[in-house]
Every structure is written in structure tokens, then in C-alpha cells.
């Protein structure tokens, strides 16, 4: 095997190695800038990040829910305004909706907005959070009147 061939093999391999690294970087680049904006955010209104900022609170859309209400359980009637979102549900003292239910974890679930949609997210509770009959494993969109069950308590979004 001649010296030149070996040199070319080496250069070719280094080239492949760098082509790989640069392609990986270009995929990361397109991943950063090439992501689609979902329909809900595109429809106007500030991005959901504006919600937490100190700017003017977004005017709620007509028909959008305004508060979260406990409809069944040990503390029926407890409510929290969605304007204060994200809302924490649990037995802890920092929870927006503080429940005395023994089957509820300290930081049980969270209700937050993304665009115009509200979703509920389980925060790793012991007994789980249910939307309808289904135990959720990831943030799940909820509409007005959809029953969310944590422990023995049932909550709903209300207008």
C-alpha cells in the first residue's frame, strides 16, 4: 500500500468525520429555526410567554374559561381565577387550589395555558390525575366542563 494511498485514506476519513459533525450541527440549526408555529399561536394575540410577563394581562377571548372550580369532593366550591395561571393543585400551602383530600399529593397537578388552550399536567403525583376516565401521563388539553379528577376531588374549568 503506497504512502499516497494511505494519505488519501486518512484525509478521506477525516473528511467523513467532519461532514458528520457539520451535518449534525446543521440539523440542530434547522431544529432551532425551522419549527412550525402552531395554529393557535398563529391566530393572533401575544405568544404564551407574554402571559407571565409584567405587561398588560391578555384580554380573555369570549367563551374562554375564567376560573377553575371544585365541583365534587371535600372542598366543593373552592375556585381559582385563571388569570393567575399557572395554577397549582395540591395539599401544599403554595397551591392555588388547596385541597384537604388525603388522596391528593402536596404538589399534585398544574393547570396552565399554551396559546388559547388550557391544559392540565400531572406533577408526578402518587395517585395520578384523570381527565375523564383516563389517567394522564403528559399535559392534556381541557375544555370548559371537562372533569379533571385528582384524588377524590373533581375540578372543572368554568366560564
Amino acid at each position: 500500500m503506497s504512502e499516497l494511498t494511505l494519505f488519501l485514506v486518512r484525509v478521506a476519513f477525516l473528511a467523513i468525520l467532519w461532514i458528520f459533525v457539520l451535518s449534525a450541527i446543521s440539523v440542530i440549526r434547522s431544529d432551532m429555526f425551522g419549527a412550525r408555529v402552531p395554529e393557535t399561536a398563529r391566530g393572533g394575540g401575544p405568544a404564551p410567554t407574554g402571559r407571565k410577563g409584567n405587561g398588560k394581562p391578555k384580554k380573555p377571548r369570549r367563551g374562554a374559561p375564567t376560573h377553575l372550580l371544585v365541583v365534587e369532593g371535600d372542598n366543593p366550591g373552592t375556585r381559582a381565577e385563571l388569570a393567575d395561571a399557572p395554577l397549582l393543585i395540591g395539599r401544599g400551602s403554595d397551591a392555588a387550589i388547596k385541597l384537604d383530600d388525603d388522596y391528593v399529593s402536596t404538589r399534585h397537578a398544574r393547570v396552565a395555558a399554551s396559546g388559547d388552550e388550557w391544559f392540565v399536567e400531572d406533577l408526578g403525583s402518587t395517585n395520578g390525575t384523570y381527565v375523564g376516565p383516563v389517567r394522564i401521563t403528559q399535559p392534556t388539553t381541557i375544555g370548559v366542563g371537562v372533569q379533571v379528577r385528582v384524588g377524590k376531588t373533581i375540578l372543572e374549568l368554568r366560564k
Partner: protein
Amino acid sequence: MSQTGTLMGFVHRRRRGAELFLLVLALAVGIGAYAAVGLGLEGQVPADIVGYGGWLTALIVAAHVTVRIVAPYADPVLLPLVAALNGFGLAILRRLDITYEALDDPHTFARQQLVWMTLGVVLFIVTLVLMRDHRVLQRFTYTAGLTGIVLLVLPFLPLIGREINGARIWINVAGFSFQPGEVAKVMLVIAFSGYLVLHRDALALAGRRVVFVDLPRGRDLGPIMAMFGISMMILVLQNDLGSSLLFFGLFLAMLYVATERPGWLVVGAALFAAGALAAYTFVGNVQNRFNFWLDPLDYYDDSPGSFQLVEALFGQGWGGLIGRGFGDGFPERVPFAYSDFIVSTIGEELGLTAVMAIVLCYGLIVERALRIALISRDGFGKLMAVGLGAIFALQVFVVIGGVTGLIPLTGLTTPFLSYGGSSLVANWVVIALLLRISDQARRPAPRLDPVDESAADSEHTQVVKLR
């Protein structure tokens, strides 16, 4: 760490096609390196390249298909990076095997590593398939912590504990030796994440301000002191400087991310300085390492001496910008060229160009881990991603920094490159965990009951019209 990430304004694409494209390139790196090793050392493309390449391809395809099915939104770059590093590492081990065989010291590092890689990919698949939501791990916070500490203590037990090359970090079960510390890293990340996510408020808010820095309260120092104690125990009892540094650095990084308080870094750095000084004074090994780093050439002939480091530095210097080419270097002059010093082998035969590419690959892995942490919706996932990324960052910095003479040398494996089954298998599982968190983080929030919502909407619109 705000719970509603600032990056939730857009939906991530799945990017599985991009992953496939990168995987093809990664396989070209792995198989190309294997072919180049054959050409350089034996003058021909290895006879078993089809079988070898086929096996590597099968493993990668299996991993890719699994990701496609069970984690469709997972990060597209992590798996290719890991596949390329692992394939490249296998080729380097093969290259060392050939030389060791010529020196009548036959090893089958490459073959064994391929077996370990197979096991690693199988566990990668099992992890992704069985664990559909990383948040279940939060239930095992304290179990994981206890397991991690037990794993760290295992090497001291009689019968199964073994001491190899001066470090008591091995256990021997049924003919296999294993480093439990590699698994302990993952367990401790889970434990720290679960603990910090619950207690970070107390650790973040209380304290007093001393010269621009918020120092934490004395009573909140418990966890950091405990972790410091464990690290020092590893250092003194196991004589393992690298792992000690890794565990303490990992905890510090996660504590800082969880609390957003530089005060912890001040406390941590002070503890580290105190520990380093104590180690320098009382542990002879540490003092040696420090001297070798400052004046490597002065201790060349001593025993223990800096022979290994000096040979590695000579090799890398001789390799220069594009290296000597496979077969034209002398990596066998460096003891442990197949594990801790594998980067010096790469530097000698492929030069700075390849070492930079390798370092960049690790950098990208860490970048992806931090990115996953940024977009993750739950605090536990964020902390876990940071912790797993920090493991890679610290490990690569400590090893490559040591081999290139930037910092005193401490023994740790180079993830995915070095020979070492425990490390390889554990790192594949780490990548599976990262992919699982990123799948959860990048998956758009699903829409439930769209009919119900639109019905309520239209109903209300009618009322407005009437009014």
C-alpha cells in the same frame, strides 16, 4: 426555572428523517474507520467488514426503529452522535488489538466492546419501551439514592469487591467484573433530581447576602455537606480521584440549576478547594498527579512516574494537525491506550483534526441535554436532563483535559470511546433516558375534546349576536 418554559411558542417537528440521514453518516464514520484501520495496518480492507458492518448497522437500525415507534418526537441528533462515537471507538480498539497481537500480548478489546455495545443497545431499547414517562422515576427518589450509595459501597465488600490497578471500584460476579459506580451515577442523578425538585424552594430562598453573593443558611448546608462527605469517602477509600470529582461536580451543577443561586457555587468551590488541599496534603497519589501535571518530564523515570502522560503527550505532538495515519503511530507505548488514554491514540494517528471533531461531538451531546432541559415542561425532567448532561461534560473535561495536560490527570473513562463494558452500557441507558425526556418535552400538548370546546364557543357567539 419557570414552569411554563419560554420556548413553548412553537411545535417541534419529529425529525426522524434527519435522524436517519445522520445515522447513515454515523455508520459511514464507524465502518469507514474500521476499513481505514485494516488498510493502514494490514494493507487491505478487513475480510470481516461485511459481517462487522452488518452487525453495527443492525444495532443502529434497531435503535432507530425503536425511537421511531416509542419516542417519535425525541431529539434527532443524540442517537447519531452516540452511534458515531461508539463506532469510532470500536475501530480504534481494533487498531490497538492488531498491534498488541503483534507484540505477543493478544487482547480482544474490539470484540468484547462490540458485545458490550450490543448489550447497551438492548438495554437502550428496553428502557425506551418500558419507560413511557420519565416522571415515574420521581417516585423512586430515595430508592434510587439508596441504590446509588449501595452500589458505591459494593466494591468494599469481601468476596465480590476487587481492586484493579490501584483503584477499588470493581465487583466480580459470576466471572464478570463490573464497575458499579457507572450505574450509581445514573441513580444519583435520579435521586438528586427528585430531591431538589421538592426542596429547591427552601434551598433557593433562605439566606443572607454577603458582598454581592447570597450565601445559603447554615442549616441548609446538610445535603451539600453529605455529598461532599461521600465524594471524599470515594477519594480516600477507593483512591479514585476522577469519580470523586465527578460526583461532587454533578451535585453542584444540579444544585445551581435547581436554585439559580451562585451562592451555592461559592460554597461548593470553597469545599472543593478545601478538599483538594486536604487530598494534596494527605493522599500521596494526588500529590503525584499534581507534580506530574506541572513538570511531566522531571518524573519520567520515577515509579510511579509520569511515563504514561509524557508518552501520550509525545504521541499527540507527533500526530500534529492531521496525524500519522492508522498504523504509523506508536500508541502501544502508552499504557492503557485503550481506556483512559484513547484520546491520545486518536491524536497520534488522526491528529488534532479528529480530536477536535470528537470534542465537538461531546459538546453537541451536552448542548442537546441542556436544550432538552430548557424545553422540558416539568422540573424533574429539567433537572434530570441537566444532571445527565453534566455527567458527560464533567467526564469528558476531566479525561480529555487530563490526557492533553490541561489539568492534572485523573482516571475516568471517555464515554462511548474507551474500552469498558460498565461505562458503555450505562451511557447507552443515559442516552435512552435523555431521549425519553426529550420525547415528552418536544411532543405538542394533545388536543382533547375539540368538539366540546368548539360547541361551547359557537353557543356563546350566538348569545353575543342576540345581545
